[in-house]
Each structure stands twice: as structure tokens, then as C-alpha cells.
């Protein structure tokens, strides 16, 4: 390999420093592996800090009837049975242990009266199940994991962006990256790579996601030959801020509803009575998001095109104690005192259920040497994720990915990285500097967001999505001809030019998958196919790349074992 590049070598390279990445790194370190963690941002800033409501784990601290079986059942039902059932089982079984572990690493959860971890109600969960810290659970989790990892001694490469996965004879063997600060390239050589890069929300303009959520990990894995799955399932969280314009999309935690918040339309009607009279505001996110959307579309929306969410019937001190960030967020950004009046809320692009296809127990991708966990991986959540199941996902499958990656590293020899792929990655990343007079990458991004919002949003049709595919092809062409100004030093325009490619790849995968799934299931709602289709319920969409471009096929899902079927058949 060329001496041209700064090179670092590890047994396990973890890409992404959110909950899944950090948990994977901790586990791999515990196995004696040398671990490098690469992060686009500073350590501790990952999207996990924005998780508010809690971690779902059937600890039964508050409701004694809870256990892994009801949690499994709720997860499968929330996911409209499209979940990988083994992942749903492992997740429900292992989440309590992962939460206890977090506590033993220093996390301080809110407490029950008898001194245990307090749990709150959340949409789609039969029991009070979410371990939480007010409405800043994600911050507590990331700080705890970060401190644990630092004290164990992982190497963190902060503000470093991966542009290409590197392979050696058909296995993943490292990655090419650049330092954001200097724009210089750096090569990581690794026996195992864990992809934990999160989601894709930045392809939509109204989103709760941070700038990092450009689908990099999913697109990198796809480019390197790994399969993707369930890409049509994009969750729109029902409650994002809708006013003022600058804050549109910022998340309003489901904990507001968990703590008793009520949704009303402009006529004061508690409209969830019409959509899900049994579960009301605590119905699953897909249902609540569609309900709010429908109310607005049919002319019953609020002044700024949303619904009212009201928690002001609860004592002001209680609201401030349980929902402190929400209190401050609305007071400072929207001039609304949520202890006195309602919030205005509407759907916001929030979470990717699909992603890189993995094996349930090992988080192994279809490309050997590559593992994936957290939002970047597919399977656990099926067609719709329940609130609180994301943080537990990060812990359960982050740990499993780290464990399997460390074991894999023990079994394989040190890789050789061919020079050609590194040079190719380098020239591709620098292309926007060489092109003169091309478009501003930000302009292409804005247009991509418009396409995805208007044509591949909450409600979908064949006509819209066919149009979207045409638009995406044009955008791809435009993205290939952008120009950037300035130097390679911390240059956001250049970063955007690179991330555009990832966003276009995942947008195309979402659209192609959504176009062929001719049914409505969970977060995927087709106006032209409004019903569940038993046939589609047996299939997952698999996306992969070959010489001719993006390919799509359906695979029949394996049948569930009798004991799991039995759990689903029981109603309590």
C-alpha cells in the first residue's frame, strides 16, 4: 500500500459514534480487540443525544405483568409482522440486561418509589416500559457509553468522514476517509468493520434528524456490495414542531403523549377517537402520523398546518420536571408555554426502519467482514418502529455487532488493501474541486429534499414515485457535476457534495422499494393500495448493486417457530 496516506490499523473499525457504535466498540474492547472509532462529528454529539423518551426494556419495575414475551409481541405488532422475528426476540430478551449494565456504568435513570429504574408508558407498548431520564435519555446514554469507552481506551478519530469501504478479495477490510479539519485523506485498515452510521432523514426537508443523517453507512455498504433490506419503511414521527418555520421538524417527544398529552384539531375534537379509539394518543407512530396528516388535509388543521398537542392539564411543576427540554424548546423557540397552552405539531421524517441487511445473532452483513447495528441496520423494527425500541436496539445489537466483529477479527489474517481502490476513492471525492462552473451542491440538496417530501412522503402513489425516479436520475446527473469553492480545509460545501451521493443512493433505494410494494403496511402507506396484502406480508425487498446499477428482488421470509407464534396468539 502507498506511503502517500496516513494509515491506522485496528482489529475492529467502528464507523459511527452514536449509541450502537459506542456499544459495539466497548464490547470489542472487552474481547481484547484493538478498536478505532471514526465519527463525522465530535465525540458525544451523535444523533443519539437527541433521543428523548426512553429505552424500552421489559424490566417490570412498574408493571409486574411485563416480560420479554409482551415486549416481543408489541414489537412485532408495531412492525406489522414484517420484523425479523429472531431479532425481535433477542431484543426483547436482552434489553433489560443492557439497561442494567448502563446503570452499572454510571447512568442515572429516574427512580421508582422503591429505588429502582422508573418506566413510563409509550405508544404501542402494552406496559409502562420505557426507562428514562426526564426527556433527555439519549444524552444520558451517550455520555455513559462515551465515558466507559474512553476509560477502556478506544482510539477515536473525530470529525473524520468515510468516503469508501475498502475490500480485500471479497471481504471488507477497511475504509478511506478524510479529516474534516484539513481535507487530507486517511486510510483505515481493519479485520472487521462495524457500520453504525444511523439514518437518512436529511433527504427530506422536514426532519428531526441532524446534518449527519445522510445515509452514508447504508450507501457505503451498498457500494461495497452489501445487501440492503426494507428500504421503503421510513418513519414519519407524528409530532414535530410546525411553527415558526426555522424550527419546523424539530422533534416533540412522544413522552408528551406518554405523560398524558392530548391531540386535538382546530375544532377542539380529540380526533384519535376516530382513528384508534382503543389506544388513542398512544397508538403506534404510523397511525398517529397519518391521522394528523389526514386532519390537516381535510381542513381541520391548526393555523400553521398541524394539530394541537396539549399537556397543560397536568400540574406545571410536573411538566417541567418530566419534560424539561420540551418546556424550554417551546418557550425559547416558539414563544409557547406548554404548561399553559397547547403545542402545534405535525409529522416529521424521523427514522429509517430499513437499512443494511444483517444476520440476527451476529449483525453480520452479506459482505464478509462487515457488520451493522442500530438505525443503519434493517430487520428489528419491520414496517414501523415503536418509540423506545431504538435506544434498546442500539444497546442489544451494538453489543452483538461488537462481539461478532471481535471474534471475526481473531479468525482472519491482516488484510491487504490494493492501491487502486484507494486512488479511485480519492479522485472521486475530489471531483467537485476539479469541475469548474458546476452547480452549488446545496442547491442540488434542496431540490432532492423537495422531490422526496412531495413524491415519497407519508402517502405514496405509483404515479408520484415513478415521477420521483425520473427526478432522482436528473439529480444524480446534477450531483455528479457540482463545483465547490474554497480549499479542502473544513469546507461544508465540499462535504455536502460528497454526502449528496449517499443521499441520492438511499433515496433511490427507498423509492424503488416503495414503488414495488403494492400494499400499505406500517410506515409505508399507498393511496393506490390502501390495504395490507397477505402476499407482501411474506416478503422483504432486498436491494443490491451489480454492474448495471441498483437491483431489487423479493425474498420470502422464513416461517416463525411455533413457540413465537404462540406468543403472538396470546393476547396478554
Amino acid at each position, binding site marked *: 500500500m502507498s506511503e502517500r496516506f496516513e494509515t491506522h490499523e485496528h482489529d475492529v473499525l467502528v464507523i459511527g459514534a452514536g449509541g450502537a457504535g459506542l456499544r459495539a466498540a466497548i464490547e470489542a474492547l472487552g474481547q481484547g480487540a484493538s478498536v478505532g472509532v471514526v465519527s463525522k462529528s465530535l465525540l458525544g454529539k451523535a444523533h443519539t443525544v437527541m433521543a428523548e423518551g426512553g429505552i424500552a426494556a421489559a424490566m417490570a419495575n412498574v408493571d409486574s405483568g411485563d416480560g420479554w414475551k409482551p415486549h416481543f409481541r408489541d414489537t412485532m405488532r408495531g412492525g406489522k409482522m414484517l420484523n425479523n422475528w429472531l431479532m425481535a426476540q433477542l431484543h426483547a430478551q436482552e434489553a433489560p440486561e443492557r439497561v442494567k449494565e448502563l446503570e452499572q456504568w454510571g447512568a442515572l435513570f429516574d427512580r421508582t418509589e422503591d429505588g429502582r429504574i422508573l418506566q413510563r408508558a409509550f405508544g404501542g407498548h402494552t406496559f409502562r416500559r420505557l426507562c428514562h431520564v426526564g426527556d433527555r435519555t439519549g444524552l444520558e446514554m451517550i455520555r455513559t457509553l462515551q465515558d466507559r469507552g474512553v476509560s477502556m481506551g478506544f482510539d477515536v478519530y473525530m470529525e473524520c468522514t468515510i468516503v469508501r469501504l475498502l475490500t480485500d478479495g471479497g471481504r471488507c477490510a477497511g475504509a478511506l476517509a478524510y479529516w474534516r479539519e484539513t481535507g487530507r485523506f486517511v486510510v483505515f485498515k481493519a479485520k472487521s468493520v462495524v457500520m453504525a452510521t444511523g439514518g437518512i432523514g436529511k433527504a427530506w426537508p422536514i426532519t428531526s434528524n441532524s446534518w449527519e443523517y445522510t445515509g452514508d453507512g447504508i450507501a457505503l455498504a451498498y457500494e461495497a456490495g452489501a445487501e440492503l433490506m426494507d428500504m421503503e419503511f421510513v418513519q414519519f414521527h407524528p409530532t414535530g414542531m410546525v411553527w415558526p418555520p426555522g424550527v419546523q421538524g424539530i422533534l416533540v417527544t412522544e413522552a408528551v403523549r406518554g405523560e398524558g398529552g392530548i391531540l386535538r384539531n382546530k375544532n377542539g375534537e380529540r380526533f384519535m377517537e376516530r382513528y384508534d379509539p382503543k389506544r388513542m394518543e398512544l397508538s403506534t407512530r404510523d397511525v398517529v402520523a397519518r391521522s394528523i396528516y389526514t386532519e390537516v388535509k381535510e381542513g381541520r388543521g391548526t393555523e400553521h398546518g398541524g394539530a394541537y398537542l396539549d399537556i397543560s392539564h397536568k400540574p406545571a411543576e410536573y411538566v417541567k420536571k418530566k419534560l424539561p427540554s420540551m418546556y424550554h424548546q417551546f418557550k425559547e423557540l416558539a414563544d409557547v408555554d406548554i404548561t399553559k397552552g397547547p403545542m402545534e405539531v405535525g409529522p416529521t421524517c424521523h427514522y429509517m426502519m430499513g437499512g443494511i441487511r444483517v444476520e440476527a445473532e451476529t449483525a453480520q452483513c452479506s459482505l464478509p467482514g462487515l457488520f451493522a447495528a442500530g438505525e443503519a441496520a434493517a430487520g428489528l423494527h419491520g414496517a414501523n418502529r415503536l418509540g423506545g425500541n431504538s435506544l434498546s436496539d442500539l444497546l442489544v445489537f451494538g453489543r452483538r455487532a461488537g462481539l461478532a466483529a471481535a471474534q471475526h477479527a481473531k479468525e482472519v489474517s491482516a488484510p491487504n488493501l490494493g492501491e487502486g481502490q484507494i486512488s479511485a476513492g480519492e479522485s472521486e471525492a475530489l471531483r467537485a474541486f476539479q469541475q469548474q462552473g458546476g452547480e452549488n*451542491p446545496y442547491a442540488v440538496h434542496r431540490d432532492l429534499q423537495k422531490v422526496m417530501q412531495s413524491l415519497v412522503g407519508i402517502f405514496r402513489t405509483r404515479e408520484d414515485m415513478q415521477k420521483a425516479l425520473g427526478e432522482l436520475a436528473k439529480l444524480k446527473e446534477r450531483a455528479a457535476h457540482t463545483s465547490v469553492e474554497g480549499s479542502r480545509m473544513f469546507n461544508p460545501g465540499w462535504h455536502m457534495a460528497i454526502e449528496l451521493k449517499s443521499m441520492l443512493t438511499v433515496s433511490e433505494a427507498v423509492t424503488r422499494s416503495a414503488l414495488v410494494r403494492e400494499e400499505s403496511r406500517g410506515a409505508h402507506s399507498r393511496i393506490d393500495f390502501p390495504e395490507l396484502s397477505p402476499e407482501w406480508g411474506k416478503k422483504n425487498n432486498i436491494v443490491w448493486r451489480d454492474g448495471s446499477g441498483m437491483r431489487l428482488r423479493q425474498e420470502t421470509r422464513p416461517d416463525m417457530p411455533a413457540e413465537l407464534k404462540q406468543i403472538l396468539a396470546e393476547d396478554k
Partner: protein
Amino acid sequence: MADATLKVFRGNKDGGQSVEFKVPVAPGMVVLDALHYIQGHLAQDLAVRWNCKAGKCGSCSAEVNGRPRLTCKTRMDALPQNEPITVMPLKAFPVIKDLVTDVSWNYKVNKKITPFTPKAGADWKFYQDDVDRVQEFRKCIECFLCQDVCHVLRDHDKYEQFGGPRFFVRVAGLEMHPMDGVSRTKLLRDELGIGLCNITKCCTEVCPEDIHITDNAIIPLKERVVDQFYDPLVWIVRKIRGAAS
């Protein structure tokens, strides 16, 4: 609505100057929105660090009209309308480019702190009353505004001897953790230089999470240091016990 004028620092470690940009103002707009507008339309290479734009990650710190702030929580309509808004990088840290500073020193200080170490035989039963106080410290989003405003760092450059308010908050969160079993008072005195803080409360004033840094973290920690190392009664008792053994 009228345009706003922003004077944004452009430059690197070798220097730079403020550059004026005109930005259209929308209702409820924050300074970070204006910076994004500049990136998207006027200067795509303007370096700004940000992540969540929701006040939760603490990345977008800068000095707006001379005051350390999160730009994502600074409303344009709360600033004087008829004069330019100045946006400068944090002064206490070296500039990398434009508004992005090198905050790596903070991560080095953090590594010095003895991690959470549970008491032997802890039963993990503890109560809300035990954690209320500590949870305040755990709200910290590491925006480093407190570090930026602290004159021990900002004006006196005591980076070698001093940890800064952020890390006193972190240590307070560990020291007052009901299950933690080790003492960090020696570290506070010797390596984090808590004695250098003369409790001017500048850090408390800029904290976007409203953590009472001085009153609830620094002063109690100073008391612990004094109790352990300077209390004459404790000192005598230790001497006697030491002599007896």
C-alpha cells in the same frame, strides 16, 4: 420581513476578518439558520460546527454580539434589529477555520478524570431524592460555553493547571453519584486546579442548560477539597490516627 446583516468571522489560525452578509429574515429564525442561509447561497465554504439544531448536542457554540451562545437557540428577533449581528468563534480555543475552533483540549482534560467506579457490593437501589442533585450535572451538553467565558482560561491561559467549569460539573456528577465509591478531591486540587476559580459565576450565566455550575458544582467541590486537605480539625485527627497506627 427586512434583511438582517451578519458580520461573520472568516479566517483561520493565521488570522482573518469579519465579512458582511445580508440574509432574509423569517419568523422565529435563529442565528444558525442565518449561517445555513449563508452556506447555502452566499459562501458554501463557511465553516460552522453544528449537529442537531435543537439545543441538545452543544455543537454550534459561537460568540454572538460578544456573548457566548448556542447559535441554534439565539433568535434573530431577540437581537437589536437595526445593527449588524457579529458572529465570532469561541475566543478561548484556537480557530481552525471561520467559526470552528479546536476544542480537543477539553477531551484531554476529560481523560484525566477517574471514571465512575461503583462502590463494592452496591445493591443499585437508590431514590429520586438521591439523584435529583446529580441529574442537574448530567444535563451538560458539552457546548463549552462555560469554558469559553471562564477568565482563568480565556484571559489567563491556565490550560495546563486548570480543568474549567465543564469538568467541575463532570466531577460533581461523579462525586455526588449515590453509587460511586472513589474520591476525586486530590485530582480536583492538583490536576484540575479548582483553587484557581474565584467564583465569579460567569459560567453559570452562559450555561444554556441552566446548570447552577458555581453554586451547585464548584462551591461544594471546593468545600470537599478544603475539608479533606485544609480542615485543621481533620488534619489533627489524621495526624493523631496516623501516629497511633
